[in-house]
């Protein structure tokens, strides 16, 4: 293999010195303590393809990155030489409002895309955490979703076409620019949630949707997590068409300002009369505490969207659990700073985010639990109780309609070797309920003892076959995915 200094030269020769980072900037792309030799910022699909082909031919292992915020997810790479960023591929290639489709490059952030669509009254209706930093490429690779998945689906439901660079540098496409298309295999599904193990998505076509005229957030308090789950079932069965229905446990509700106890938060959208009608019907499910003001609504919606970072960074004073940092990501500075200070740049926000993650990384664990929605009320309280028994404090947010729960817990016991046995218990408990657990945020000290993915995923043999077919030399994110893919 080429030794590091020569290695950077290799790429400088291809895309120019300015597009090859070997200095301090490399640190932002650390994966489980491993630093890449260099980070590449190609300016075109052709450059990116050349870089990847060259790296692969030189026997180097590449991890595709955007802004580098999702790199904590997955197993420790078996090899990591080059971070290849799509950040400079950031054009909107086509937006035909009347077609309700948009074609973009992968390095554009979701926030930038939605800002552009807003002028046409449209949006890509996906709400993963931190749209300011989440690039389209990361969105697809990590299959990120948020509360809106209840009414709008996830990436797989909006993505209609892709362009991907394979490990050998070949550029392939799938799908197209039309909303209905069954020509060829559905390559969009394959690359969505493939975590950079099969190729680098460089362009994506989406169908977009009109923005609702009005949106409103309603909060229904419940005494316990269990009661909140059951209330959420009631809301989901009510004759309304909510945008989202979330269950917050007490810690999450306190930290995000939703209330003093567990709550069900409901987002509704539509014309004024549609929203009003839904509010009336919600009252039949339970007390509707308040329909918030616009500013509060935005704040609450963003807090749910950015879970668990919103809880980690904005834990309010009266919450004992999870008081990690008094930092407000949105203000870009310590809490208390005058709101008229200039808006932080993306780089400043990213640095703050990394800081929070870094400082909280040793004693925080985050996971995603998938269950049949009807099982939440039974399983979640048991998980919480067991966490409590082990002196972990936990914040929980359940996408009640999808049955997907984000769970973040912390405690001194995590740093003291208490995590692996708890993770084993948790996984066994959830598997017994026919569910799945993915640990998407594990402290480094436990990474070699806990598989972030389940190892008995059905179809693993086929998945390995697919990896072999698309990246036989294992040049892309080797060892990071399920079953060591």
């Amino acid at each position: 293999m080429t030794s590091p200094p020569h290695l950077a030269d290799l790429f400088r020769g291809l895309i120019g010195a300015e597009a090859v980072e070997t200095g301090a900037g490399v640190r932002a792309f650390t994966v489980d303590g491993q630093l890449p030799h260099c980070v590449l910022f190609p300016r075109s699909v052709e450059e990116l393809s050349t870089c990847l082909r060259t790296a692969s031919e030189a026997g180097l292992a590449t991890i595709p990155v955007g802004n580098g915020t999702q790199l904590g997810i997955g197993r420790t790479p078996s090899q990591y030489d080059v971070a290849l960023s799509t950040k400079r591929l950031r054009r909107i290639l086509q937006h035909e409002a009347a077609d309700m489709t948009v074609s973009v490059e992968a390095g554009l952030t979701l926030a930038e895309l939605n800002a552009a669509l807003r002028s046409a009254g449209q949006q890509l209706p996906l709400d993963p955490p931190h749209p300011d930093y989440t690039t389209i490429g990361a969105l697809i690779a990590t299959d990120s979703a948020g509360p809106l998945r209840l009414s709008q689906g996830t990436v797989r439901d909006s993505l209609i076409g892709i362009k991907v660079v394979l490990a050998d540098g070949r550029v392939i496409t799938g799908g197209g620019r039309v909303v209905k298309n069954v020509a060829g295999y559905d390559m969009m599904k394959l690359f969505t949630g493939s975590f950079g193990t099969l190729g680098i998505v460089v362009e994506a076509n989406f169908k977009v949707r009109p923005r609702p005229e009005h949106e409103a957030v309603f909060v229904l308090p419940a005494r316990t997590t269990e009661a909140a789950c059951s209330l959420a079932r009631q809301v989901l069965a009510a004759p309304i068409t909510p945008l989202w229905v979330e269950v917050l446990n007490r810690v999450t509700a306190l930290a995000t300002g939703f209330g003093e106890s567990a709550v069900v938060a409901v987002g509704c959208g539509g014309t004024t009369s549609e929203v009003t009608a839904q509010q009336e019907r919600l009252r039949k499910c339970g007390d509707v505490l308040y329909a918030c003001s616009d500013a509060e609504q935005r704040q609450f919606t963003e807090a749910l969207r950015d879970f668990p970072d919103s809880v980690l960074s904005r834990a309010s004073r009266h919450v004992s659990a999870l008081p990690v940092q008094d930092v407000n990501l949105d203000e870009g500075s310590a809490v208390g700073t005058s709101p008229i200070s200039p808006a932080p740049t993306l780089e400043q926000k990213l640095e703050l985010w990394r800081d929070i993650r870094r400082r909280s990384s040793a004693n925080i664990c985050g996971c995603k639990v998938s269950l049949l929605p009807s099982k939440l009320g039974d399983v979640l309280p048991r998980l919480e109780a067991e966490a409590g028994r082990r002196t972990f404090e936990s914040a929980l947010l359940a996408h009640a309609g999808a049955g997907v729960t984000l769970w973040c817990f912390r405690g001194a016991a995590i740093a003291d070797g208490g995590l692996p046995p708890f993770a084993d218990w948790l996984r066994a408990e959830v598997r017994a309920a026919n569910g799945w657990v993915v640990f998407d945020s594990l402290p480094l000290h436990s990474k070699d003892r806990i598989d972030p993915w389940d190892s008995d995923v059905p179809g693993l043999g086929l998945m390995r076959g697919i990896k072999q077919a698309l990246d036989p030399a294992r040049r892309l994110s080797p060892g990071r995915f399920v079953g060591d893919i």
Partner: protein
Amino acid sequence: MLRGEVLSALRKIVGEAAVIARPAELRVYECDGYTLKKSAPEVVVLPGSTAEVVQVLRLLHRERIAFVPRGAGTGLSGGCLPVGAPVMVGLSRMNRIVEIDLENQRVVVQAGVVNQWVTNAVKDRGFCYAPDPSSQLACTIGGNVAENSGGPHTLKYGVTTNHVLGVELVLPDGEVVQLGGLDDVPGYDLTGLVVGAEGTFGIVTLVTLRLIRQAESWKTLLAIFETVDDATATVSGIIAAGMIPAALEMMDQLIVAAVEAAFHFGFPTDAGAVLIVELDGLAAGLDEQVQRVVEICNLNHARAVRIAQDEAERAALWKSRKRAFGAVGRLAPNYCTQDGVVPRTKVPEILCRITEIGRRYQLRIGNVFHAGDGNIHPILLYDERDPDQVHRVLDAGREILEACVALGGSVTGEHGIGVEKIAQMPLLFSPADLDVMSHLRQVFDPDVRCNPGKIFPTPGACVETKRPHRQVAL
């Protein structure tokens, strides 16, 4: 030619009555809804359970025999035409709804369950299965999964892939894999890959489907226009106003006349085009939307806008639309339908092109299609007894698909590639794209024994290129 031992082994697995090998009976299976090509299998096996499917596929794996899965045979691209596959595995006996779980808004059904049965089983309790292909009274869920079928109501609710939560798949070597089932199962989205793979990855035996709640309220409008252009401008207007109707369908004069002759709904046969617009959602606010749609229709010179007064009238309207293909049988001895897609805004352009192509080839072409999706279904009328007409139909059909691609669209929105559109795949995909797809196929089916000769324009696929005989039909 299959050996006698293979036939008796198959009989042993599925039972005497579930093996069809008499030539006269096999003729039923010689084509699907795409009748340009016909080729009967040597034997049809009808397993009654996943276990029987497993045994059949293991046997075929040992014997290195190719096979083709089949649902109801209503496909429109020759997806279940046997091409170098002597055995057909029919799923029609596996027609049980296994589980209805309304609390989680899902059902588990065997692959041979008919699309409409799913909704029938849950509609009394306020639910439905959204994808509604025109053949929904006959087509099976297994076939829908293979083709990723659509239907009029997919504009708002999405196509089959948006409603399949998981599948049980028997691989060509007989191994069973359970894919998906919940949201966010770790690993690659193999469920998503299997849907729309046109039965080339194995045999889907069990499917978990998402149910949706029936809309509280609906309004179905029929708007009548003097010209196709006015109708398409209305479609654009509705989309631009930020509305997503449940369905937005168009029929042109030729089709309207045929439908009226068949069903006597009361369509004006002199209108240039009609639009069916269905709006659904909460009762509150629906009238506002209807009002806005009516205004947009009037702005675009609608001759009249009628609103269905009750469920019966709505049902009659949809019956007319969904059976439009059948009604066309009155206009000519034979017809061939295409399934191209263009970006919504290119609908007027593609319709002009179709008119021009029809004129040039001296063919009558009607249009009935999903205007909201840009998914067109030009119907080319002809008489099979005139070989020259058959040639002109084929050439015109190809030109129409090429025009769709040139306008930024696709050659198929919901019917699939099958054998019909193999030649058009290179219009959309590069050799590298196709190479990767065929490598993917070999992950599931290394010997290419499962539904060979479909989708890919590979030399090894032994696709017949002979000219059509018989009928070209829906």
